[in-house]
């Protein structure tokens, strides 16, 4: 019989080892920039063009030797990466702003390397402006995803809601001649679609993933049918809405670079500027948000303090659907100017991925969506400035880096605990 001598507090509580995945990825990517873009890079000059010809204030382009610039940036990135390793080993976390600086640096190096000796240079306004516009449907889709997952409903049907919004806004915008009516109709239509999802999932407890997939297939089928049977024959009168006017905001739009990128846009972009912070505020600073998150984390606990779980879920999912409809409208009325077959092209599914990437936080999800917007425009632009380059490979790079970096975050934030689980009383 053994007696072990023990004093209180002798046992340390269980410890988790900090993950080195993120810092190591940062270092590896920095080495790629340093070696391939820097030491083994191109010898010519890069010209970063900051101003549009139409702007009042013209900034001179920034011209720099490619090898020198990429070596410098690569070294700075390496430094951040090493710093991050040191921080992690000491048990700290790498601050998000440092990773943001890193991302910005890596982006500049990639753009610069691609556009070395290209006559048009790196057109910053074109790239950033398009990144934003292309990201808008993804951001709205992502917000819809947050709104439903935060209350515990998995919404696979975002794809279908985007497509519904795109279709309805284009057709009704054309028929009525008023794009705002088109936009509102898109929100209503997608909201109704969400009500189907919400009531089947909440009231009738149908498996959420299955309803989502079915709704997507249904919307693709219906829009394709209507498009070929009706719309396509009379495009001029049915599917020719055009886009919203650009509304430059006085003064703000005259700020160099940022003014053009952020404040000379269509209404859909401005709505995003309002919606994202608003959703953050509601979720984390109001009682509505507290209750919604409670329902998504522990519905029974919410029920025992008198919160109506079913009703909360229903309205958050429905309003989320309206936001996704707005995303659909921003695809047509905010960018392309008409509806095309299956034009959502998987954006709804990317939005779901972005929700996870952004850890169910509106601000992070927006940043994630912008990254995807950037890769879309990068593909187009890289082809123009350096023809012959393996474009698909280049566009893969930001995804790869993000994927591995996020694997490091993964342990930190968990999804809403009751996501995807129906709530049955009693």
């Amino acid at each position, binding site marked *: *019989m*053994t*007696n*072990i*001598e*023990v*004093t*209180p*507090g*002798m*046992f340390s*509580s*269980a*410890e*988790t*080892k900090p993950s080195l995945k993120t810092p190591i990825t940062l270092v590896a990517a920095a080495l790629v920039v340093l070696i391939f873009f820097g030491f083994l890079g191109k010898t010519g000059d890069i010209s970063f063009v900051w101003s549009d010809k139409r702007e009042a204030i013209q900034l001179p382009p920034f011209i720099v030797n490619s090898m020198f610039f990429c070596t410098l940036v690569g070294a700075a990135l390496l430094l951040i990466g090493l710093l991050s390793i040191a921080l992690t080993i000491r048990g700290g976390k790498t601050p998000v702003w440092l990773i943001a600086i890193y991302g910005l640096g890596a982006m500049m190096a990639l753009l610069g390397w691609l556009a070395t000796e290209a006559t048009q240079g790196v057109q910053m306004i074109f790239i950033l402006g398009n990144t934003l516009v292309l990201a808008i449907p993804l951001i709205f889709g992502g917000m819809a995803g947050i709104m439903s997952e935060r209350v515990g409903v998995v919404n696979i049907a975002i794809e279908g809601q985007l497509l519904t919004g795109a279709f309805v806004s284009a057709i009704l915008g054309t028929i009525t001649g008023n794009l705002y009516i088109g936009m509102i109709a898109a929100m209503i239509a997608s909201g109704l679609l969400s009500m189907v999802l919400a009531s089947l999932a909440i009231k009738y407890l149908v498996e959420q993933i299955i309803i989502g997939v079915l709704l997507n297939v249904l919307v693709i089928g219906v829009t394709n049918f209507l498009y070929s049977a009706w719309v396509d024959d009379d495009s001029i009168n049915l599917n020719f809405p055009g886009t919203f006017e650009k509304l430059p905001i006085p003064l703000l739009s005259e700020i160099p670079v940022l003014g053009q990128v952020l404040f000379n846009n269509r209404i859909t972009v401005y709505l995003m500027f309002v919606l994202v912070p608003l959703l953050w*505020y509601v979720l984390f*600073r*109001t*009682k509505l*948000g*507290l*209750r919604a*998150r*409670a329902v998504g*984390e*522990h519905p*029974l*606990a*919410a*029920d*025992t*303090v*008198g*919160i*109506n779980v079913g009703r909360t879920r229903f309205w958050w999912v429905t309003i989320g659907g309206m936001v996704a409809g707005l995303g659909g409208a921003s695809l047509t009325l905010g960018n392309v100017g008409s509806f095309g077959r299956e034009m959502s092209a998987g954006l709804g599914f990317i939005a779901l991925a972005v929700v996870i990437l952004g850890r169910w936080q509106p601000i992070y999800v927006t940043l994630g969506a912008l990254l995807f917007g950037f890769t879309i425009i990068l593909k187009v632009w890289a082809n123009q400035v350096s023809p012959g380059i393996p474009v698909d490979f280049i566009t893969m790079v930001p995804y790869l880096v993000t994927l591995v970096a996020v694997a490091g975050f993964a*342990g930190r934030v*968990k999804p809403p*605990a009751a996501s995807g689980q129906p709530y049955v*009383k*009693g």
Partner: protein
Amino acid sequence: MKLEVKNITKRFGTLVANDNISLTLQPGEILSLLGENGAGKSTLMNVLYGLLQPDEGQILIDDKVQKFSGPGEAMAAGIGMVHQHFMLIPVFTVAENVVLGHEPTGKVGNLDLNAARKLVKKISDRFGFDIDPDAKIQDLPVGAQQRVEIIKSLARDAKILVLDEPTAVLTPQETDELMEIMRGLSKNGTSIIFITHKLREVQQVADRIIVIRQGKVVSEASPKASAGELASLMVGREVDLNTSKKAAKVGVETLVVKDLTVLDDRNQQMVNGISFSVHDGEVLAIAGVQGNGQTELAEAILGLRKIHSGSIQVAGQDLTKSNVRQVLEAGVGYIPEDRKKDGLVGDFTIAENLMLDGSFGKPFAKGVQIDFAKRDEIAEKLIKEFDIRTPSATTLAKQLSGGNQQKVVVAREMSRDLKVLIASQPTRGVDVGSIEFIHEQIVAARDAGKTVVIISTELDEVLSLADRIAVMYRGRFVGIVDAKTTREKLGKMMAGIAA
């Protein structure tokens, strides 16, 4: 506030969970509702709290008839409830949990968390709870979480507090603290309904005791009644609270565990360099509050969980890197702590559940095919031998009561040729009759010369079965002591303080 429950009946299908139950609760009174698992106590309280609607009967508060269609209305009427499984949101702070559902708001409809913090502080200080309003629930120990639940009810001006099996997850010290809290509350005029099946606690704190059996109020008892009297009221017949056993005839060392370290799913060290050995013909009981690594220890021995370092031997055979099947074939039997999750397949019949671990060869398999005749024959035999109360061997496991389900698991594990039996919480959620039976089986296995390891959070069970007791705290053994060690000393060890 005076509460009256009149003639409440609640049925689930053909099962009558509450049969014409009536009781009254005076202001400031601690009323204990005593009954076995499945007697209908929780159903009655869920009716009282508006989570369930009664089929018949009335609830009166201060002689006024109340109708609660949801917990919100019950709370508004002054009833607060601390559930057996806490209704707290792990990722929220204490303050957020306390105000959830009746949040104070600022000028623009924003959440006023400062007001919430003040409210928590006020109640916490008044009763000496020592709770930080900004702590996240998931970082708090269980005892503190329970106090948050009580604060939650008090913050809503609850005059009647229902505590549903509140001590199930507490250390003996925390239990004593809770009793103090209950007395303090009742002095301040709060009435308390205290639901439990633990006799000792009832005797300590209750003003009055109501015993419920099979959905009916069977009698009212005084807290001065002896434990034996209360137990027979609860079960409906004489019960022997002590398992009698002969002195252990200790044989050779059979189970040897050396420097065992095991990680959980989140890579936290749950078992931290434990060494021990158990002999033939002896029961080692591993005591401790839930969540101190007992689950991981048992899973590691069975081969369900990867071993980080250290070794495990059974009868000289090294099982450190073995898979579950190899461990079972080495003669280890395992009664898992959660029979519904790990012990049974609810949608399988009893006969099928009884052969779950024997599908590889004899006696259940004939070549690639199951020998159905043999299976049914063995099932009939085990049902008789282990007193499994069931209409037939083809009844689905999920239709049995907790005690009979547990007997199915025990029958399956103990009918094999065992060297070592590991039983995790062998009687959790089981009626008293089945507890007696299972305990007898465990002692019989010991007397037959098997090596037995019991993992239990119930001190009563540990004390009545063990030959030696190991107390586990944060992944280590605080000590291994003999079975005559006092309850107080064991309680201290469970809180990590060495003997």
